[in-house]
Protein backbone atom coordinates (compact mmCIF):
# COMPACT_ATOMS: atom_id res chain seq x y z
CA UNK A 1 0.00 0.00 0.00
CA UNK A 2 1.64 3.23 -1.06
CA UNK A 3 1.02 6.37 0.88
CA UNK A 4 -1.34 8.79 -0.81
CA UNK A 5 -0.17 12.05 -2.27
CA UNK A 6 -1.70 14.09 0.54
CA UNK A 7 0.79 12.90 3.08
CA UNK A 8 3.72 12.22 0.75
CA UNK A 9 3.96 15.52 -1.05
CA UNK A 10 3.13 17.68 1.93
CA UNK A 11 5.34 15.73 4.36
CA UNK A 12 8.08 15.85 1.80
CA UNK A 13 7.82 19.59 1.45
CA UNK A 14 7.94 19.93 5.22
CA UNK A 15 11.03 17.70 5.26
CA UNK A 16 12.82 19.89 2.72
CA UNK A 17 11.81 22.99 4.61
CA UNK A 18 13.02 21.70 7.97
CA UNK A 19 16.05 19.64 7.00
CA UNK A 20 17.16 21.07 3.66
CA UNK A 21 20.53 22.76 3.59
CA UNK A 22 20.88 26.26 2.24
CA UNK A 23 22.49 26.30 -1.19
CA UNK A 24 23.38 28.91 -3.72
CA UNK A 25 22.03 28.09 -7.15
CA UNK A 26 22.21 28.96 -10.83
CA UNK A 27 19.29 31.38 -10.64
CA UNK A 28 20.75 33.41 -7.77
CA UNK A 29 17.59 33.02 -5.67
CA UNK A 30 19.01 30.55 -3.16
CA UNK A 31 17.35 27.30 -2.15
CA UNK A 32 16.94 24.83 0.63
CA UNK A 33 17.77 21.46 -0.74
CA UNK A 34 17.88 17.76 0.01
CA UNK A 35 19.39 15.09 -2.22
CA UNK A 36 17.87 11.76 -3.20
CA UNK A 37 14.20 11.48 -2.29
CA UNK A 38 11.54 9.13 -3.52
CA UNK A 39 7.78 9.37 -3.65
CA UNK A 40 5.48 6.69 -4.98
CA UNK A 41 1.80 6.69 -5.81
CA UNK A 42 -0.61 3.90 -6.55
CA UNK A 43 -2.58 5.22 -9.51
CA UNK A 44 -5.40 2.81 -8.82
CA UNK A 45 -6.19 4.95 -5.81
CA UNK A 46 -6.37 8.21 -7.65
CA UNK A 47 -4.48 10.64 -9.77
CA UNK A 48 -1.66 12.36 -7.90
CA UNK A 49 -2.58 15.92 -8.61
CA UNK A 50 -1.68 18.17 -5.69
CA UNK A 51 -4.77 19.51 -3.95
CA UNK A 52 -3.20 21.89 -1.42
CA UNK A 53 -3.10 24.49 -4.16
CA UNK A 54 -4.81 24.79 -7.47
CA UNK A 55 -2.74 23.21 -10.19
CA UNK A 56 -3.34 24.39 -13.72
CA UNK A 57 -4.06 21.05 -15.29
CA UNK A 58 -4.55 22.28 -18.83
CA UNK A 59 -0.99 23.59 -18.97
CA UNK A 60 0.30 20.26 -17.74
CA UNK A 61 -1.65 18.33 -20.35
CA UNK A 62 -0.74 20.67 -23.17
CA UNK A 63 2.92 20.64 -22.24
CA UNK A 64 2.92 16.87 -22.33
CA UNK A 65 1.19 16.83 -25.72
CA UNK A 66 3.74 19.35 -26.90
CA UNK A 67 6.56 17.09 -25.73
CA UNK A 68 4.94 14.19 -27.54
CA UNK A 69 4.78 16.26 -30.72
CA UNK A 70 8.57 16.27 -30.59
CA UNK A 71 8.39 20.03 -30.56
CA UNK A 72 11.30 22.29 -29.67
CA UNK A 73 9.50 25.58 -30.27
CA UNK A 74 7.24 27.40 -27.82
CA UNK A 75 4.85 28.68 -30.53
CA UNK A 76 2.47 25.73 -30.38
CA UNK A 77 2.12 26.27 -26.63
CA UNK A 78 1.72 30.02 -26.98
CA UNK A 79 -1.04 29.54 -29.56
CA UNK A 80 -2.89 27.54 -26.91
CA UNK A 81 -2.40 30.11 -24.17
CA UNK A 82 0.39 28.28 -22.37
CA UNK A 83 3.24 30.59 -21.44
CA UNK A 84 5.34 28.36 -19.19
CA UNK A 85 8.23 28.06 -21.65
CA UNK A 86 8.20 31.70 -22.78
CA UNK A 87 10.99 32.94 -20.57
CA UNK A 88 13.47 30.53 -22.11
CA UNK A 89 12.24 30.80 -25.71
CA UNK A 90 13.82 32.96 -28.36
CA UNK A 91 11.51 36.01 -28.42
CA UNK A 92 11.66 36.23 -32.20
CA UNK A 93 11.28 32.63 -33.23
CA UNK A 94 10.02 30.77 -30.14
CA UNK A 95 12.94 28.38 -30.53
CA UNK A 96 14.16 26.43 -27.48
CA UNK A 97 16.73 24.15 -29.05
CA UNK A 98 16.58 20.35 -28.87
CA UNK A 99 14.73 20.13 -25.52
CA UNK A 100 12.70 17.24 -24.10
CA UNK A 101 10.30 16.42 -26.93
CA UNK A 102 12.96 16.66 -29.60
CA UNK A 103 15.06 14.04 -27.79
CA UNK A 104 12.04 11.89 -26.97
CA UNK A 105 10.84 11.70 -30.56
CA UNK A 106 13.90 12.35 -32.70
CA UNK A 107 17.21 11.77 -30.92
CA UNK A 108 19.70 12.36 -33.78
CA UNK A 109 22.06 9.61 -34.89
CA UNK A 110 25.52 10.12 -36.44
CA UNK A 111 24.33 8.86 -39.82
CA UNK A 112 21.75 11.63 -40.05
CA UNK A 113 18.82 9.52 -38.90
CA UNK A 114 16.66 9.88 -35.80
CA UNK A 115 15.38 7.61 -33.07
CA UNK A 116 11.82 7.88 -31.82
CA UNK A 117 12.14 6.73 -28.22
CA UNK A 118 8.41 7.05 -27.51
CA UNK A 119 7.51 4.82 -30.46
CA UNK A 120 10.10 2.33 -29.22
CA UNK A 121 8.51 2.37 -25.76
CA UNK A 122 5.06 1.70 -27.20
CA UNK A 123 6.45 -1.09 -29.34
CA UNK A 124 8.20 -2.70 -26.40
CA UNK A 125 5.19 -2.37 -24.11
CA UNK A 126 3.21 -4.30 -26.70
CA UNK A 127 5.75 -6.88 -27.76
CA UNK A 128 8.11 -7.28 -24.82
CA UNK A 129 6.45 -5.93 -21.67
CA UNK A 130 8.83 -7.76 -19.32
CA UNK A 131 11.77 -5.82 -20.73
CA UNK A 132 14.02 -4.01 -18.28
CA UNK A 133 14.99 -1.49 -20.95
CA UNK A 134 11.81 0.49 -21.54
CA UNK A 135 13.44 3.84 -21.06
CA UNK A 136 13.19 7.34 -22.44
CA UNK A 137 16.01 9.81 -21.93
CA UNK A 138 16.24 13.49 -22.69
CA UNK A 139 19.85 13.87 -21.49
CA UNK A 140 21.63 13.85 -24.82
CA UNK A 141 25.14 14.77 -23.73
CA UNK A 142 26.13 16.11 -27.14
CA UNK A 143 23.13 18.45 -27.42
CA UNK A 144 22.95 19.88 -23.90
CA UNK A 145 24.71 23.08 -24.88
CA UNK A 146 22.07 23.74 -27.54
CA UNK A 147 19.13 23.42 -25.15
CA UNK A 148 17.50 26.53 -23.70
CA UNK A 149 16.95 24.58 -20.47
CA UNK A 150 18.51 21.27 -19.53
CA UNK A 151 16.16 18.36 -18.86
CA UNK A 152 15.11 18.26 -15.21
CA UNK A 153 13.01 15.14 -15.57
CA UNK A 154 15.85 13.47 -17.37
CA UNK A 155 14.90 9.79 -17.55
CA UNK A 156 11.79 7.71 -17.22
CA UNK A 157 11.42 3.97 -17.17
CA UNK A 158 8.29 1.87 -17.63
CA UNK A 159 7.57 -1.50 -16.13
CA UNK A 160 4.73 -3.95 -16.70
CA UNK A 161 3.61 -6.48 -14.10
CA UNK A 162 0.31 -8.38 -14.17
CA UNK A 163 -0.78 -6.22 -17.09
CA UNK A 164 -0.32 -3.04 -15.11
CA UNK A 165 1.97 -0.28 -16.24
CA UNK A 166 4.25 1.44 -13.76
CA UNK A 167 6.51 4.38 -14.38
CA UNK A 168 9.61 5.62 -12.61
CA UNK A 169 10.76 9.14 -13.27
CA UNK A 170 14.28 10.26 -12.46
CA UNK A 171 14.41 13.98 -11.94
CA UNK A 172 17.90 15.41 -11.44
CA UNK A 173 16.67 18.77 -10.25
CA UNK A 174 13.29 19.34 -8.71
CA UNK A 175 11.74 22.62 -7.70
CA UNK A 176 9.34 21.09 -5.23
CA UNK A 177 6.97 24.02 -5.00
CA UNK A 178 6.50 24.81 -8.67
CA UNK A 179 7.98 21.89 -10.51
CA UNK A 180 7.11 18.75 -8.63
CA UNK A 181 3.59 19.75 -7.67
CA UNK A 182 3.00 21.39 -10.98
CA UNK A 183 4.32 20.92 -14.40
CA UNK A 184 7.19 18.60 -14.73
CA UNK A 185 6.24 16.50 -11.80
CA UNK A 186 3.62 14.28 -10.45
CA UNK A 187 0.60 14.91 -12.59
CA UNK A 188 2.66 15.21 -15.69
CA UNK A 189 4.29 11.84 -15.62
CA UNK A 190 1.15 10.17 -14.43
CA UNK A 191 -0.59 11.54 -17.47
CA UNK A 192 2.27 10.28 -19.53
CA UNK A 193 1.79 6.83 -18.04
CA UNK A 194 -1.94 7.02 -18.63
CA UNK A 195 -1.42 8.07 -22.23
CA UNK A 196 0.95 5.27 -23.01
CA UNK A 197 -1.31 2.92 -21.23
CA UNK A 198 -4.30 3.86 -23.27
CA UNK A 199 -2.64 3.70 -26.61
CA UNK A 200 -1.65 0.10 -26.32
CA UNK A 201 -2.79 -3.12 -24.82
CA UNK A 202 -0.47 -5.67 -23.38
CA UNK A 203 -1.23 -9.00 -24.94
CA UNK A 204 -4.99 -9.42 -24.76
CA UNK A 205 -5.34 -7.63 -21.50
CA UNK A 206 -5.91 -3.96 -21.48
CA UNK A 207 -3.24 -2.40 -19.42
CA UNK A 208 -4.12 -0.28 -16.47
CA UNK A 209 -1.93 2.09 -14.61
CA UNK A 210 -0.52 0.68 -11.48
CA UNK A 211 1.95 2.80 -9.84
CA UNK A 212 4.12 5.71 -10.54
CA UNK A 213 7.12 6.59 -8.57
CA UNK A 214 9.02 9.79 -8.62
CA UNK A 215 12.65 9.51 -7.94
CA UNK A 216 13.78 12.96 -7.29
CA UNK A 217 17.43 13.63 -7.14
CA UNK A 218 17.44 17.07 -5.87
CA UNK A 219 14.70 19.11 -4.43
CA UNK A 220 14.39 22.65 -3.34
CA UNK A 221 11.58 24.28 -1.48
CA UNK A 222 11.02 27.79 -0.37
CA UNK A 223 7.55 27.56 1.06
CA UNK A 224 5.49 25.19 3.05
CA UNK A 225 1.90 24.39 2.32
CA UNK A 226 -1.41 24.00 4.03
CA UNK A 227 -3.18 20.78 4.71
CA UNK A 228 -4.31 18.74 1.76
CA UNK A 229 -7.94 18.17 0.99
CA UNK A 230 -9.04 15.07 -0.76
CA UNK A 231 -7.04 14.01 -3.75
CA UNK A 232 -8.38 13.88 -7.24
CA UNK A 233 -9.88 10.75 -8.68
CA UNK A 234 -8.76 11.35 -12.20
CA UNK A 235 -7.01 8.08 -12.78
CA UNK A 236 -10.14 6.01 -12.68
CA UNK A 237 -11.84 8.48 -15.01
CA UNK A 238 -8.92 8.41 -17.40
CA UNK A 239 -8.89 4.65 -17.36
CA UNK A 240 -12.42 4.63 -18.76
CA UNK A 241 -11.60 7.03 -21.54
CA UNK A 242 -10.32 6.00 -24.93
CA UNK A 243 -7.39 7.95 -26.23
CA UNK A 244 -6.98 8.07 -30.00
CA UNK A 245 -3.23 7.64 -29.79
CA UNK A 246 -0.14 9.36 -28.67
CA UNK A 247 -0.94 12.42 -30.68
CA UNK A 248 -4.15 12.81 -28.74
CA UNK A 249 -5.85 16.11 -29.33
CA UNK A 250 -6.09 18.64 -26.61
CA UNK A 251 -9.86 18.23 -26.81
CA UNK A 252 -9.45 14.95 -25.02
CA UNK A 253 -7.58 16.67 -22.26
CA UNK A 254 -10.16 19.42 -22.14
CA UNK A 255 -12.76 16.82 -21.42
CA UNK A 256 -10.54 15.44 -18.66
CA UNK A 257 -10.10 18.90 -17.32
CA UNK A 258 -13.82 19.11 -16.80
CA UNK A 259 -13.50 16.09 -14.59
CA UNK A 260 -10.80 17.87 -12.63
CA UNK A 261 -13.07 20.81 -11.95
CA UNK A 262 -15.01 18.59 -9.62
CA UNK A 263 -11.91 18.37 -7.50
CA UNK A 264 -11.93 20.17 -4.24
CA UNK A 265 -8.82 22.27 -4.43
CA UNK A 266 -7.60 25.27 -2.54
Amino acid sequence: MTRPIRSQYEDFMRHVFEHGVAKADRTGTGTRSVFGQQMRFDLREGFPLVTTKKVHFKSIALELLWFLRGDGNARWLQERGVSIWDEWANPETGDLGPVYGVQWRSWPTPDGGHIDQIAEVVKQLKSNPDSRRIIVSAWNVAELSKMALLPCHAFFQFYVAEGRLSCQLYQRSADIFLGVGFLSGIAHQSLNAVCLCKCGTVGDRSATVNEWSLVSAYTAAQEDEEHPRRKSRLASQLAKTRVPGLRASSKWFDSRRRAIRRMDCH
Partner: protein
Amino acid sequence: MRHPEHQYLEMLGRVLESGDPRTDRTGVGTLSRFGEVARFDLSSGEVPILTTKRVYWKTAVKEMLWFLTGGTNIRDLLREKVSIWTDWPLERYRKATGTHISQAEFEMRVLEDSAFAAQWGELGPVYGKQWRNWVGSDGKVYDQISNVVQTLKTNPSSRRILFHGWNVPEIDRMALPPCHLLYQYHVSSDGRLSCILFQRSADILLGVPFNWTGAVALQLMLAQQAGLGLGEFVWMGGDVHLYKNHVDQAREQLSRSPRPMPRMRITKAAPESIDGYCIEDFAVEGYDPHPAIKAEVAV
Protein backbone atom coordinates in the same frame (compact mmCIF):
# COMPACT_ATOMS: atom_id res chain seq x y z
CA MET B 1 21.51 2.88 15.22
CA ARG B 2 20.15 0.18 12.99
CA HIS B 3 22.71 -1.60 10.82
CA PRO B 4 22.54 -0.07 7.32
CA GLU B 5 22.87 -3.47 5.64
CA HIS B 6 19.33 -4.31 6.78
CA GLN B 7 18.20 -2.10 3.89
CA TYR B 8 19.69 -4.64 1.51
CA LEU B 9 18.37 -7.66 3.38
CA GLU B 10 14.86 -6.21 3.61
CA MET B 11 14.88 -5.38 -0.08
CA LEU B 12 16.04 -8.91 -0.86
CA GLY B 13 13.26 -10.23 1.36
CA ARG B 14 10.64 -8.06 -0.37
CA VAL B 15 11.74 -9.25 -3.81
CA LEU B 16 11.73 -12.86 -2.63
CA GLU B 17 8.35 -12.69 -0.92
CA SER B 18 6.38 -10.29 -3.11
CA GLY B 19 8.33 -10.02 -6.38
CA ASP B 20 6.40 -10.40 -9.61
CA PRO B 21 7.33 -13.69 -11.32
CA ARG B 22 8.42 -12.78 -14.86
CA THR B 23 10.15 -14.07 -17.88
CA ASP B 24 13.22 -12.15 -18.84
CA ARG B 25 15.72 -11.61 -21.61
CA THR B 26 18.02 -14.35 -20.34
CA GLY B 27 15.27 -17.01 -20.18
CA VAL B 28 16.04 -17.82 -16.55
CA GLY B 29 13.04 -16.02 -15.08
CA THR B 30 13.01 -13.57 -12.18
CA LEU B 31 11.07 -12.28 -9.24
CA SER B 32 11.02 -8.53 -9.53
CA ARG B 33 9.95 -5.30 -7.91
CA PHE B 34 10.00 -1.83 -9.40
CA GLY B 35 11.40 1.25 -7.69
CA GLU B 36 13.60 0.57 -4.66
CA VAL B 37 15.82 2.95 -2.70
CA ALA B 38 18.69 2.46 -0.26
CA ARG B 39 20.84 5.14 1.33
CA PHE B 40 24.09 5.05 3.25
CA ASP B 41 25.93 7.66 5.27
CA LEU B 42 29.60 7.52 4.26
CA SER B 43 30.73 10.41 6.46
CA SER B 44 32.28 8.13 9.08
CA GLY B 45 34.25 6.26 6.42
CA GLU B 46 32.01 3.18 6.54
CA VAL B 47 30.94 1.92 3.12
CA PRO B 48 28.17 -0.44 1.97
CA ILE B 49 30.31 -3.46 1.13
CA LEU B 50 28.02 -6.26 2.27
CA THR B 51 29.03 -8.32 5.26
CA THR B 52 26.36 -11.05 5.00
CA LYS B 53 28.50 -12.56 2.25
CA ARG B 54 32.00 -11.91 1.03
CA VAL B 55 32.03 -9.31 -1.74
CA TYR B 56 35.16 -9.34 -3.87
CA TRP B 57 35.56 -5.61 -3.51
CA LYS B 58 38.87 -5.48 -5.40
CA THR B 59 37.17 -6.92 -8.48
CA ALA B 60 34.46 -4.27 -8.26
CA VAL B 61 37.00 -1.47 -7.84
CA LYS B 62 39.11 -2.84 -10.72
CA GLU B 63 36.00 -2.83 -12.90
CA MET B 64 35.34 0.80 -11.94
CA LEU B 65 38.94 1.72 -12.75
CA TRP B 66 38.53 -0.03 -16.10
CA PHE B 67 35.37 1.99 -16.83
CA LEU B 68 37.37 5.13 -16.10
CA THR B 69 39.95 4.20 -18.73
CA GLY B 70 37.17 4.31 -21.32
CA GLY B 71 38.04 0.73 -22.24
CA THR B 72 35.55 -1.61 -23.91
CA ASN B 73 37.62 -4.74 -24.49
CA ILE B 74 37.75 -7.53 -21.91
CA ARG B 75 41.47 -7.93 -22.50
CA ASP B 76 42.42 -5.20 -20.04
CA LEU B 77 40.13 -6.72 -17.42
CA LEU B 78 41.59 -10.18 -17.94
CA ARG B 79 45.07 -8.77 -17.44
CA GLU B 80 43.82 -7.74 -14.00
CA LYS B 81 42.39 -11.25 -13.53
CA VAL B 82 38.81 -9.97 -13.72
CA SER B 83 36.46 -12.31 -15.58
CA ILE B 84 33.11 -10.71 -14.85
CA TRP B 85 32.59 -9.46 -18.42
CA THR B 86 33.76 -12.62 -20.18
CA ASP B 87 30.37 -14.32 -20.39
CA TRP B 88 28.97 -12.02 -23.09
CA PRO B 89 31.83 -12.19 -25.61
CA LEU B 90 32.25 -15.89 -24.90
CA GLU B 91 28.59 -16.51 -25.70
CA ARG B 92 28.93 -14.49 -28.88
CA TYR B 93 32.01 -16.45 -29.92
CA ARG B 94 30.39 -19.81 -29.25
CA LYS B 95 27.28 -18.88 -31.20
CA ALA B 96 29.20 -17.41 -34.13
CA THR B 97 31.69 -20.24 -34.50
CA GLY B 98 29.74 -23.19 -33.16
CA THR B 99 32.74 -24.24 -31.07
CA HIS B 100 32.46 -25.20 -27.42
CA ILE B 101 35.57 -23.47 -26.21
CA SER B 102 35.96 -23.35 -22.43
CA GLN B 103 35.98 -20.01 -20.65
CA ALA B 104 39.60 -20.50 -19.56
CA GLU B 105 40.73 -21.25 -23.09
CA PHE B 106 38.77 -18.32 -24.52
CA GLU B 107 40.29 -15.95 -21.96
CA MET B 108 43.75 -17.31 -22.72
CA ARG B 109 43.33 -16.59 -26.42
CA VAL B 110 42.08 -13.06 -25.74
CA LEU B 111 45.14 -12.44 -23.57
CA GLU B 112 47.68 -13.95 -25.94
CA ASP B 113 46.36 -12.99 -29.34
CA SER B 114 45.70 -9.29 -29.87
CA ALA B 115 43.92 -9.84 -33.19
CA PHE B 116 41.64 -12.38 -31.53
CA ALA B 117 41.03 -9.94 -28.67
CA ALA B 118 40.16 -7.16 -31.11
CA GLN B 119 37.68 -9.38 -32.92
CA TRP B 120 36.10 -11.29 -30.04
CA GLY B 121 36.93 -9.47 -26.81
CA GLU B 122 35.15 -6.29 -27.74
CA LEU B 123 31.96 -5.35 -25.86
CA GLY B 124 30.81 -2.50 -28.05
CA PRO B 125 30.41 1.08 -26.81
CA VAL B 126 29.62 0.15 -23.19
CA TYR B 127 29.98 2.23 -20.02
CA GLY B 128 33.54 3.54 -20.19
CA LYS B 129 33.19 4.59 -23.82
CA GLN B 130 30.13 6.69 -23.05
CA TRP B 131 31.56 8.08 -19.83
CA ARG B 132 34.82 9.25 -21.38
CA ASN B 133 34.19 9.45 -25.14
CA TRP B 134 30.51 10.09 -25.81
CA VAL B 135 30.26 10.87 -29.53
CA GLY B 136 27.54 13.23 -30.66
CA SER B 137 25.73 13.08 -33.98
CA ASP B 138 28.08 15.82 -35.16
CA GLY B 139 31.14 13.68 -34.38
CA LYS B 140 32.24 15.75 -31.39
CA VAL B 141 33.55 13.83 -28.37
CA TYR B 142 32.49 14.54 -24.77
CA ASP B 143 34.35 13.43 -21.65
CA GLN B 144 31.60 13.35 -19.05
CA ILE B 145 33.87 12.28 -16.18
CA SER B 146 36.27 15.16 -16.67
CA ASN B 147 33.30 17.51 -16.81
CA VAL B 148 32.06 16.15 -13.49
CA VAL B 149 35.45 16.64 -11.84
CA GLN B 150 35.73 20.13 -13.29
CA THR B 151 32.25 21.12 -12.11
CA LEU B 152 32.83 19.70 -8.63
CA LYS B 153 35.85 21.96 -8.35
CA THR B 154 34.48 25.11 -9.92
CA ASN B 155 30.72 25.08 -9.40
CA PRO B 156 29.88 22.58 -6.65
CA SER B 157 26.35 23.89 -6.08
CA SER B 158 25.39 22.92 -9.63
CA ARG B 159 22.34 20.70 -10.08
CA ARG B 160 23.80 19.33 -13.28
CA ILE B 161 26.70 17.25 -12.00
CA LEU B 162 25.85 13.96 -13.59
CA PHE B 163 26.95 11.45 -16.21
CA HIS B 164 25.32 8.44 -17.78
CA GLY B 165 25.87 5.73 -20.37
CA TRP B 166 22.48 5.69 -22.12
CA ASN B 167 23.53 6.90 -25.55
CA VAL B 168 20.36 6.07 -27.45
CA PRO B 169 21.74 5.41 -30.97
CA GLU B 170 24.55 3.21 -29.63
CA ILE B 171 22.57 0.92 -27.34
CA ASP B 172 22.02 -1.71 -30.02
CA ARG B 173 25.78 -2.09 -30.41
CA MET B 174 26.46 -2.67 -26.72
CA ALA B 175 26.96 -6.21 -25.40
CA LEU B 176 24.78 -5.09 -22.52
CA PRO B 177 23.03 -1.71 -22.22
CA PRO B 178 24.01 0.20 -19.07
CA CYS B 179 22.39 -1.21 -15.94
CA HIS B 180 23.90 1.28 -13.53
CA LEU B 181 22.65 4.02 -15.70
CA LEU B 182 23.19 7.39 -14.16
CA TYR B 183 25.43 8.89 -11.50
CA GLN B 184 24.57 12.28 -10.04
CA TYR B 185 26.57 14.24 -7.46
CA HIS B 186 25.68 16.85 -4.88
CA VAL B 187 27.94 18.93 -2.68
CA SER B 188 26.45 20.14 0.59
CA SER B 189 27.28 23.56 1.96
CA ASP B 190 29.69 21.95 4.44
CA GLY B 191 31.68 20.40 1.59
CA ARG B 192 30.45 16.83 1.57
CA LEU B 193 30.03 14.91 -1.65
CA SER B 194 26.93 12.75 -2.06
CA CYS B 195 26.12 10.44 -4.94
CA ILE B 196 22.94 9.01 -6.41
CA LEU B 197 23.24 5.95 -8.56
CA PHE B 198 20.15 5.26 -10.65
CA GLN B 199 20.12 1.66 -11.85
CA ARG B 200 17.44 0.67 -14.38
CA SER B 201 17.98 -3.06 -13.97
CA ALA B 202 19.44 -4.60 -10.85
CA ASP B 203 20.36 -8.24 -10.31
CA ILE B 204 19.98 -7.98 -6.57
CA LEU B 205 22.10 -10.98 -5.62
CA LEU B 206 25.10 -10.69 -7.93
CA GLY B 207 24.96 -7.20 -9.39
CA VAL B 208 23.87 -4.83 -6.66
CA PRO B 209 26.62 -5.56 -4.07
CA PHE B 210 29.17 -5.03 -6.83
CA ASN B 211 27.61 -1.88 -8.17
CA TRP B 212 27.45 -0.33 -4.71
CA THR B 213 31.12 -1.08 -4.13
CA GLY B 214 32.20 0.32 -7.49
CA ALA B 215 30.07 3.44 -7.12
CA VAL B 216 31.46 4.17 -3.66
CA ALA B 217 35.03 3.74 -4.92
CA LEU B 218 34.27 6.29 -7.63
CA GLN B 219 32.73 8.62 -5.05
CA LEU B 220 35.94 8.39 -3.00
CA MET B 221 38.06 9.25 -6.03
CA LEU B 222 35.86 12.18 -7.04
CA ALA B 223 35.78 13.52 -3.48
CA GLN B 224 39.56 13.36 -3.29
CA GLN B 225 39.98 15.02 -6.69
CA ALA B 226 37.72 17.88 -5.68
CA GLY B 227 39.00 18.16 -2.10
CA LEU B 228 35.64 17.25 -0.59
CA GLY B 229 34.48 15.13 2.33
CA LEU B 230 31.99 12.29 2.02
CA GLY B 231 28.24 12.61 2.42
CA GLU B 232 25.69 10.00 1.42
CA PHE B 233 25.51 7.26 -1.16
CA VAL B 234 21.93 6.91 -2.40
CA TRP B 235 20.92 4.04 -4.64
CA MET B 236 17.75 3.95 -6.70
CA GLY B 237 16.72 0.82 -8.54
CA GLY B 238 14.25 0.37 -11.42
CA ASP B 239 13.58 -3.31 -12.10
CA VAL B 240 15.11 -4.94 -9.03
CA HIS B 241 15.12 -8.67 -9.57
CA LEU B 242 16.17 -11.99 -8.15
CA TYR B 243 16.88 -14.73 -10.69
CA LYS B 244 14.88 -17.85 -9.96
CA ASN B 245 18.06 -19.89 -9.74
CA HIS B 246 19.27 -17.57 -6.94
CA VAL B 247 16.42 -18.23 -4.52
CA ASP B 248 18.31 -20.67 -2.30
CA GLN B 249 21.26 -18.32 -2.13
CA ALA B 250 18.96 -15.45 -1.18
CA ARG B 251 17.43 -17.51 1.65
CA GLU B 252 20.89 -18.42 2.87
CA GLN B 253 21.96 -14.79 2.92
CA LEU B 254 18.76 -13.70 4.67
CA SER B 255 19.53 -16.13 7.49
CA ARG B 256 22.74 -14.28 8.31
CA SER B 257 23.23 -11.26 10.56
CA PRO B 258 25.22 -8.23 9.38
CA ARG B 259 28.63 -7.64 10.90
CA PRO B 260 30.32 -4.26 11.38
CA MET B 261 30.54 -2.31 8.13
CA PRO B 262 34.02 -2.01 6.67
CA ARG B 263 35.77 1.25 5.81
CA MET B 264 37.24 2.06 2.46
CA ARG B 265 39.85 4.71 1.89
CA ILE B 266 42.33 5.88 -0.69
CA THR B 267 45.83 5.38 0.64
CA LYS B 268 47.72 8.03 -1.31
CA ALA B 269 47.49 11.78 -1.77
CA ALA B 270 45.35 13.01 -4.64
CA PRO B 271 46.96 12.28 -8.02
CA GLU B 272 47.00 14.86 -10.83
CA SER B 273 43.74 13.61 -12.29
CA ILE B 274 41.00 11.01 -11.97
CA ASP B 275 43.11 8.87 -14.32
CA GLY B 276 45.89 8.54 -11.76
CA TYR B 277 44.42 5.76 -9.60
CA CYS B 278 45.17 2.05 -9.49
CA ILE B 279 43.87 -0.82 -7.39
CA GLU B 280 46.80 -0.62 -4.95
CA ASP B 281 45.56 2.84 -3.91
CA PHE B 282 42.47 1.40 -2.25
CA ALA B 283 42.30 -0.12 1.21
CA VAL B 284 39.33 -1.77 2.89
CA GLU B 285 39.64 -2.10 6.64
CA GLY B 286 37.61 -3.95 9.21
CA TYR B 287 36.04 -6.29 6.69
CA ASP B 288 35.08 -9.59 8.29
CA PRO B 289 32.20 -10.91 6.19
CA HIS B 290 30.26 -14.15 6.24
CA PRO B 291 31.52 -16.65 3.62
CA ALA B 292 30.97 -16.04 -0.08
CA ILE B 293 27.77 -17.34 -1.70
CA LYS B 294 28.17 -18.88 -5.12
CA ALA B 295 25.59 -18.23 -7.84
CA GLU B 296 25.44 -18.51 -11.63
CA VAL B 297 25.27 -15.29 -13.62
CA ALA B 298 22.49 -15.07 -16.21
CA VAL B 299 23.94 -14.02 -19.55
